């Protein structure tokens, strides 16, 4: 049952690498990747409805970037 994962890597001019992985997490989203540089990891997902809502003549796009406190071993509100 372990999923089929695709992984790609690129290098920056100074030799550090950025990798991107898809197929493992959040598979009900229309698209989902995990990007990694060093120990920084971002999970990006995108979902788009199949149809536009009645009367909408623009792109109802919302983009949310969120930093999980656990990502840095922190608990919010503390100093």
């Amino acid at each position: 049952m372990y999923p089929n994962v695709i992984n790609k890597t690129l290098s920056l001019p100074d030799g550090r690498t950025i990798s991107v992985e898809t197929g493992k997490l959040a598979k009900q989203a229309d698209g989902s990747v995990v990007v990694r540089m060093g120990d920084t990891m971002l999970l990006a997902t995108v979902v788009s409805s199949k149809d536009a809502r009645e009367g909408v003549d623009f792109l109802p796009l919302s983009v949310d970037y969120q930093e999980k406190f656990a990502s840095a071993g922190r608990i919010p509100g503390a100093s």
Partner: protein
Amino acid sequence: MKREGKLSDHEVLVSRLIDRALRPLFPGDYHAETQVMVSLISADETALPDALACFAASAAIAVSDIPFAEPVAEARVARVNGEFVVNPTPAQMAEADLDLIVAATMENIMMVEGEMKEVSEQDMLEALKVAHASIKEMCKIQIELTEETGNTEKREYSHETHDEELEKEMFEQLYDKVYAVAKQLISNKKERSAAFAKVKEEYIESLGEDTEVDLGLVSTYFGKINKKASRNLVLDEKIRLDGRQPEQVRPIWSEIDYLPSAHGSAVFTRGETQSLCTTTLGTKLDEQMIDGAMHQGTNRFILHYNFPGFSTGEAKPNRGPGRREVGHGNLALRALKQVLPSHEENPYTIRIVSDILESNGSSSMATVCGGCLSMMDAGVPIKAPVSGVAMGMISDVETDRHVVLTDILGDEDHLGDMDFKVTGTEDGITACQMDIKVEGLSYEVLEQALMQARDGRLHILNEMKKTIATPRGEMKPHTPRTVSLKIARDMIGAVIGPGGKIVQEIQKETGATIVIEEVEAGGLVNIFAASQDTMDKAVAWVKGIVAMPEEGEVYEGKVKSITAFGAFVEFMPGKEGLLHISEVKWERLESMEGVIEVGEQIQVKLIEIDKRTGKYRLSRKVLLEKPEGYQERPPRQDRGNRGDRGDRRGGRDNRDRRRDS
């Protein structure tokens, strides 16, 4: 309990960076609800996530079946000691004099945002090229991902219906009329839009009451005609909707010291855009707390931007600042941050608030100008004045023409191909924010825009100077005063007192606010007070605590105890010295009885600090007039010459010491 939920300002700003890069790449006729989420799930403090977030978002779209023109990615570029670094570490960023985030596709720069320490236009262009090289790699990988996941075919959709016949007919019937209205060059926004609306209404009337024509489509097509005519006006005639030349800035007027109770205030008005700015100077306690997953600390410089509905004549409920407001405030903050005085020159926490009272474009740039003026009005010693200008562009690929516009209106933002805000001093750029809506913008055009922006910026600086050229030499009378006293590290505890007892007492008794910081060399006691009197009292109190006794100084002392050979007097907080029986009065005393009482306040002079024991010897009589007929004794001639006084007065001194020990 705080938990991840409502986005912090930092998260909003990163969200906007992603949004601005992605949005232009969705097809114009795609109207399905779309949600992009990027979560930082593991944090490495040497690898900043903000510049990676757009790449992640675009890659998620690349592996989906959602229609999207082509992959996009962002990179941060910094200049560290003259070298450009892509996606620098925080340590490198601390050294950088340029910090840009750039979004681009394989071929085109889409978006730029950043801050600079008064950097030249050419250096900025160079930075863009470095960022673009890395971004191309990230786009290439996304194309590979799309192929390997088999998502090259995107989903079908049909969110618009069209009536090409109607569109053609309307263009034929109305284009010239609309162009004629545009050419009237009506500078007032309301009047101009009323004149355009009249053409549309006449057309609808001509259709008759029972028309089956879709009026929604009529509006859509009229908008297209309007846009085309307005763009052609600029391209063909090199004149703008409001009658200005392409490089012409709207009329400016400004005023400072407008609000009597503010620490600093300014009204900045450019055409139909007006900002009322205030500067408030606060204490360290007013610093803004930052509590993010990766960033914690405090901000000493805060800028809030408000955009109420009435500024554009709209009756919209007030829901507090949205993402646009956070973004505009942040741009103005970055623009002004570069010229702030150092911590040593300015111990205040500074808060600028910009309330947009009227808006017809470029209100963030009005905030930069007004914010700068209000700081100068408050007497903040900024390094140099900063102004900002919003640039636009109208281009036509087919005829290979383009016109760069200085100080764009709201309308010109909507119908143009670029929104490029640049702020800076006379010496260089301090911040920029650029969104490009067309493909194939060359670096040459970018350079032209930058140079034209420079002219605009300098023109505006000149206008501002007419109001105030350099920061006011003094703070307003009602600005809180501040004094910083450096104290020895081992005195910090004495000023704080057990459990903060002493510092609280000083604050309570004087009304001053006291903040103690540990700095490298020792302690820094920052005192904030609403008046000079309050300040004097608080300074004296702190100085009293930390002062070292000095020989020859006169002190107000308090008698603590009396012995046969004299009295012990507390002449400074926690410091007692001996007032020997022979130093009480000129007259020789046989006993201390009835001469002074415990608890009595007396003036004493510190006549000696014993070098060996550190003990203090006090005198009262030297502060009294010598009684008439007082018999000087031989040793008196040497008073004042302490070096040999001990020898000459040997006998008595020796006896004293015996009793004292």
